[in-house]
């Protein structure tokens, strides 16, 4: 018997890390060759890794959600005497030590090289691990990419900027990456101040010692964390940033909102609670809101539309893929329930439960986040009354639901205590106008005010 360590392979031509999505084995399990071990998510894909050994799992070197470095231990096995020969993922480990200035790009067959996404700073990360980095020697070129006689490193726009201001950039020292002369360097030189500013005296840290979640990670407390922290924009954060930027700067947003008496919705939920027909299915106000929004779409299909600027068309869809904004440990994601308009009360509740469970567990597939037509964001659990949401790209409307709370309400000219919630709906004003949005929201409100009657009408 001997121990074998399975190093996280580069499954995607130039990737440097992958996140553990789900373990399919436990320590102590006996596994066969090619048995699925783990799902990992890379910048390119979520893939399943099959076992390279037949043997027993000794150690899992990470937890779900951990981002693991390529070519670092992932699983330790105990294997029989005549186990497989190769022990490590050695295909990509280059015998070549490359200068640290180099950047490698992930190249996918058929895609070619791009400057977007997945630019792997492999050599930088590898420096501590490869043990093959050779220090420059006297007769080796100092940099493979810079001919000795070249002009100072800068970019054409900055060179032009310097030239226009009568500045010879050969006199400057670059502060950019690898000594690159930046626009900032030129500006500093023109204003006569040194490029680097001395650090100010640091004040003693004060503040609470609590951590808080932000962009899918735990932020260090105010008192003890660094004064400034830079967090790479990637993964779920990148998706959120891209989607919101795209939507905010392409779809003119407008919104309508109203307060609604949801007492009867609460009563309906209470009356159905524990019914045998429901089994283990749990109903929530969100279930009724989802049914209400789908019902509104059936009456006003225009709300279930998207604006296809490229083709000069508005696309109206007669199926609702209902997006549910989900606050997950990794950040905000918006998976959707396909054909939600076809679902009844119980099926909707079950679909929501599955969606939330998968989102929390991090097993939502890319397909489950594609094709959303309408979205609900439920801010009530955070204790707020309303929100002004941004549309997921390519959708017609998004409904924000505030908390369901008791409030004074006028019924038959009497002020009484009722359960009240505030609904706010943002819509893409290119194809949806205020009149349509108002009708849709009023329809949702009527449904919640009297769900029994709405269900009767169907």
């Amino acid at each position, binding site marked *: 018997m001997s121990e074998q360590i399975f190093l996280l392979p580069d499954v995607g031509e130039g990737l440097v890390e992958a996140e553990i999505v789900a373990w399919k084995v436990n320590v102590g399990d006996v596994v066969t060759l*090619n048995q699925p071990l783990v799902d990992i998510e890379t910048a390119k894909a979520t893939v399943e890794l099959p076992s390279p050994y037949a043997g027993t799992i000794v150690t899992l070197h990470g937890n779900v959600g951990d981002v693991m470095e390529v070519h670092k231990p992932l699983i330790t096995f105990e294997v029989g005497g005549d186990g497989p020969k190769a022990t490590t993922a050695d295909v990509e480990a280059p015998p070549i030590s490359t200068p640290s200035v180099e950047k490698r790009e992930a190249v996918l067959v058929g895609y070619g090289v791009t400057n977007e996404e997945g630019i792997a700073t492999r050599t930088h990360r590898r420096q501590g691990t490869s043990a093959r980095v050779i220090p420059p020697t006297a007769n080796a070129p100092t940099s493979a990419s810079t001919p000795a006689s070249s002009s100072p490193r800068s970019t054409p726009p900055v060179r032009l900027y310097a030239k226009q201001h009568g500045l010879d950039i050969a006199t400057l020292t670059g502060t950019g990456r690898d000594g690159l002369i930046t626009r900032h360097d030129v500006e500093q030189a023109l204003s006569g101040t040194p490029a680097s500013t001395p650090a100010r005296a640091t004040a003693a840290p004060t503040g609470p010692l609590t951590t808080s979640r932000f962009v899918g990670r735990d932020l260090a407390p105010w008192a003890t964390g660094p004064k400034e922290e830079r967090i790479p924009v990637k993964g779920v954060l990148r998706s959120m940033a891209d989607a919101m930027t795209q939507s905010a700067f392409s779809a003119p947003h407008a919104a309508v909102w109203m307060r609604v008496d949801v007492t009867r919705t609460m009563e309906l939920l209470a009356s159905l609670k524990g019914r045998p027909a429901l089994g283990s299915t749990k109903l929530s106000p969100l279930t009724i809101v989802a049914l209400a929004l789908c019902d509104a779409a059936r009456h006003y299909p225009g709300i279930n539309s998207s604006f296809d600027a490229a083709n000069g068309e508005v696309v109206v869809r007669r199926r609702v893929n209902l997006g549910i904004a989900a606050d997950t440990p990794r950040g905000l994601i918006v998976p959707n329930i396909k054909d939600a308009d076809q679902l009844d009360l119980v099926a909707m509740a079950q679909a929501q439960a599955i969606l939330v469970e998968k989102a929390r567990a991090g097993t939502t597939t890319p397909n489950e986040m594609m094709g959303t037509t309408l979205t609900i964001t439920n801010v009530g659990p955070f204790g707020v009354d309303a929100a002004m949401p941004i549309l997921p790209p390519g959708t017609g409307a998004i409904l924000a639901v505030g908390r369901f709370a008791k409030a004074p309400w006028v019924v038959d000219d009497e002020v009484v205590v009722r359960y009240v919630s505030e609904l706010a709906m943002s819509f893409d004003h290119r194809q949806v106008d205020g009149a349509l949005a108002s009708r849709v929201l009023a329809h949702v409100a009527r449904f919640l005010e009297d769900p029994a009657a709405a269900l009767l009408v169907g």
Partner: protein
Amino acid sequence: MIDEELVQLLTPEGERVSHPEYESTLSGEEILGLYRDMVIIRRLCNESTSLQRQGQLALWAPVQGQEAAQIGAGRALAPTDFTFPTYREHGIAWCRGVPPEDMLRLFRAVSNGGWDPQKYRHSVPTIVLGNQALHAVGYAMGVQRDGAEEAVMTFFGDGASSQGDVLESFVWAASFNAPIVFFCQNNQWGISTPMSTQSKIPLYHRAHGFGFPGVRVDGNDVLAVYEVTKRALESARVGGGPTLIEAYTYRLGAHTTSDDPTRYRIDAEVEVWKHRDPIERVKSLLVREFKIKAGVFDDIVAEADVLALKLRDDVLAMDRPDPRTMFDNAYATPHPLIDEGLRDMVELGVGGGAH
């Protein structure tokens, strides 16, 4: 979705159907041979995907779903014909006699090719999209000038059909009536580009515009692919000029191991094509018409498993070549830029005692 001009001799359910121009000439034994080829190539492909996921290959291009297109075409070739593949033609390479481990050398990054093209009459994989069509037409024009009775066949996909190289090679082949068969596996997706974007007309219609015949065959029907390809090759060998064959098929897996198809296509579409599986329909024909027993199929699966384990062992045992050898075949004679690249590499600490 499939139009009526599609040549099909065996339905997805394994029922024979007649076609006015083509009929199957294969015996039960030969059909069983095609079945064995398809099962083995799928098994070897699965093992290769696993090897990639285990860090033993840099990349792999799966062939699942396209076995009938490749085995049907590959078995229609004569030993003297010459073929020019892309990086997905593992089934063709198998039919040409290339040892499976040699198919993986390129993907393990220990070779620029993997085998001797002359030995197997099968060129090494071309990664540059559609480029091999030009090589193939040039080779075919050479065959023509030799006066040899050989055909040349080149392979590409629906994505590469939009490449200038492929369309230029159509022009040259037509102008010189070259002895070539253009075998396009339309697997419906050029990475993430759907067929509906790739071409507004069926791909085989394009041939007519260039002045040679085009035919669409059910690429998941190995019997039909075999007959259609055989006829096109025979025509090429006797001066009939080029033919475009569009094998209408589907890539069940990812474009390559670097791709995640769930990001751009829906499960329902994949499910539809799983019902058109190229292997299952042949199995049901063999059972029903030729009374092949379960034990025969079990033996083939067992044989495929043995081959897969051998492939694994062979791959894991491959030596890493001296990195300097990667420059060896770039030019036939010394070249100053190659010499410079080699020198730089050595100065950076490479070469020498690599293994």
